[in-house]
């Protein structure tokens, strides 16, 4: 393509704008296509995982004392007598219509369970990412502006700690210190047992629901429970966001236009926030989206520690009970949200960054 015109952007002809929009639309269509392919891939992987289970699902339904005819009937009913590819197509159809099977441990459809537990995870992860962005971005900018200072060193150590500290361990230590010793926060669970079930779930987000019901007491109680697990999740996204912000900022600060701005006599604050920070906004959005997706995944461990009734807790309980329908359903949901956030951030990057257009 480069051989056609040496400088394609040097002399924009008429219709170049339309061409560019068409190109952007094509790229977005490509992202949408890859979203669909990746989701299909995810479904294929969970399908495969469901097949490698050493337990015969038909045997699990009828028990090992069942007569052969009953066992065969169960096999036919579960569709296990069909070729693998037919089974897969049926599985895709079932997933697309929201039929994720029945959970053995709760005795309810997996989809219904997931609808109930997902908002709790969303609430915790969202607060976590807000904490991560609110602290991580300024920390990264600060570290880059004062490269080599002691604050920069501390921020770098925090960034590394995010890679090296197990989330479940930090959760336990956090509980021991802030709940048991200092009593700054409330313990495991979403609210105190006394308040449990008092608020009718509308959105499933307890902070919103309690305010809607006008129960400020429950609202503040819920905040007391939420703040520690969300802060711990926030720490991990903070570590990642601060590290990436610092690196992006250092790249910008080394550019010549920054020297020009400084030579013009602009105050350092303006040089940093107006000139250097603007161009990194778009890549930062991608970083934050990635971090948000990672938090949804990382909440599995944290929820186990804090008995948080979210999808992570649901998944671990199902794992330990070998409740495969629930395991695969939760895996599918987390995977879909994860992939969706990733692809949306890809698309945003393409729309927002003038250089990517």
């Amino acid at each position, binding site marked *: 393509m480069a051989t056609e015109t040496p400088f394609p952007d040097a002399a924009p002809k008429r219709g170049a704008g339309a061409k560019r929009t068409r190109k952007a639309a094509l790229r977005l269509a490509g992202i949408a296509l890859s979203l669909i392919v990746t989701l299909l891939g995810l479904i294929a992987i*969970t399908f495969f995982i469901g097949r490698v289970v050493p337990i015969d699902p038909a045997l699990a339904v009828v028990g090992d004392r069942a007569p052969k005819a009953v066992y065969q009937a169960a096999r036919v009913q579960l569709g296990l007598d069909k070729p693998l590819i037919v089974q897969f197509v049926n599985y895709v159809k079932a997933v697309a219509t929201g039929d994720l099977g029945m959970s053995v441990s709760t005795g309810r459809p997996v989809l219904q369970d997931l609808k109930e537990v997902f908002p709790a995870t969303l609430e915790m992860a969202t607060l976590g990412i807000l904490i991560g962005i609110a602290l991580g971005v300024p920390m990264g900018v600060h570290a880059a502006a004062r490269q080599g200072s002691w604050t920069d060193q501390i921020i770098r150590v925090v960034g590394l700690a995010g890679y090296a500290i197990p989330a479940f361990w930090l959760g336990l*230590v956090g509980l021991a210190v802030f709940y048991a010793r200092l009593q700054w926060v409330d313990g495991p669970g979403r609210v105190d047992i006394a308040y449990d079930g008092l608020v009718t779930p509308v959105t499933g987000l307890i902070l919103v629901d309690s305010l809607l019901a006008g129960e400020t007491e429950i609202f503040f109680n819920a905040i007391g429970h939420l703040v520690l697990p969300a802060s711990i999740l926030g720490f991990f996204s903070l570590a990642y966001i601060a590290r990436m912000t610092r690196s992006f900022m250092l790249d910008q600060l080394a550019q010549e236009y920054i020297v020009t701005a400084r030579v013009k006599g602009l105050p350092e604050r303006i040089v940093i926030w107006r000139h250097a920070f603007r161009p990194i906004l778009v890549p930062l959005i991608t970083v934050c989206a990635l971090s948000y*997706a990672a938090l949804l995944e990382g909440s599995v461990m944290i929820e186990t520690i804090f008995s948080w009734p979210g999808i992570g807790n649901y998944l671990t309980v199902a794992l330990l009970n*070998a409740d495969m329908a629930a*395991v695969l359903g939760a895996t599918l949901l987390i995977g879909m949200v994860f*992939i969706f956030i990733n692809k949306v951030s890809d698309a945003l990057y393409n729309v927002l960054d003038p250089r990517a257009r």
Partner: protein
Amino acid sequence: MAFTDMRNWLLDESPASRRQARWGRIFRISLAFRGNALAMVGLVIVLALIAMAAFAPWIATHDPIAQDTYARLRPPSAANWMGTDELGRDIWSRVVFGARITLAIVILVAVLAAPAGLLIGATAGYLGGWVDRVLMGITDIFLSMPKLILALALVAALGPGIENAILAIAVTSWPSYARIARAETLTFKNADFIAASRLQGASSWRIVVGHILPLCTSSMIVRVTLDMAGIILTAAGLGFIGLGAQPPLPEWGAMIARGRTFILDQWWVATMPGFAIITVSLGFCFLGDGLRDVLDPKSGEKH
């Protein structure tokens, strides 16, 4: 004098033999590496881990599995450096023996995932065309999956245990290696020396394995070292949930899980193995950063 002679021989600008060139390169890299304080700390930590694993019976003060119910939940003391757990087992000794498990996990995952990723990436990059598109399509699908959740589901399906945990982590970690190997392959796919060996009649397989793979190794070593921390954390997480190493194996994550009940009063049971995990993960991070600076200065953060 022999030392300076040796040094001059190693640093010779125009090496006379292949051997001299090779040793000279290693020497220069080690000189650059020694100047990086954090990288040296990382190296020391990783060597300490290896030493701990190798000489565990001599470093441990107690039997890691022997129970002593009279001495249960003792705080750290001169006799039990990290205290004892709820069955009276010495935590220090269990941490020391746990080094073997951690080391085995990271080595096995690296041995399984890195060559698989290398081969897939190099094949895709070298052959190009539809092979490239299919292989990289699969790689991208795996790359955009949540790794931890996939590993969890896979272990749940295969059954709890350390072998399945290793397998699950390996299955979820090869794609990033494939990406790197492909990128590296594309940079020297059209180089003259590749064309020369193709003209001599070398098969694609021979070129990929004999010429392309060796050139990918240094960036691969960097990447694998940097990934070690993540592998250790995932393995510990699986152990913590109860899907990884099974009791009485002294796996660090499983040890933290056992200490969970006592975290409020007997804090040492859960915290001590955590310090071991953090130290080792940090060690691999430092080492990886240092290796990247000397082996692969183009990629990664410049600062």
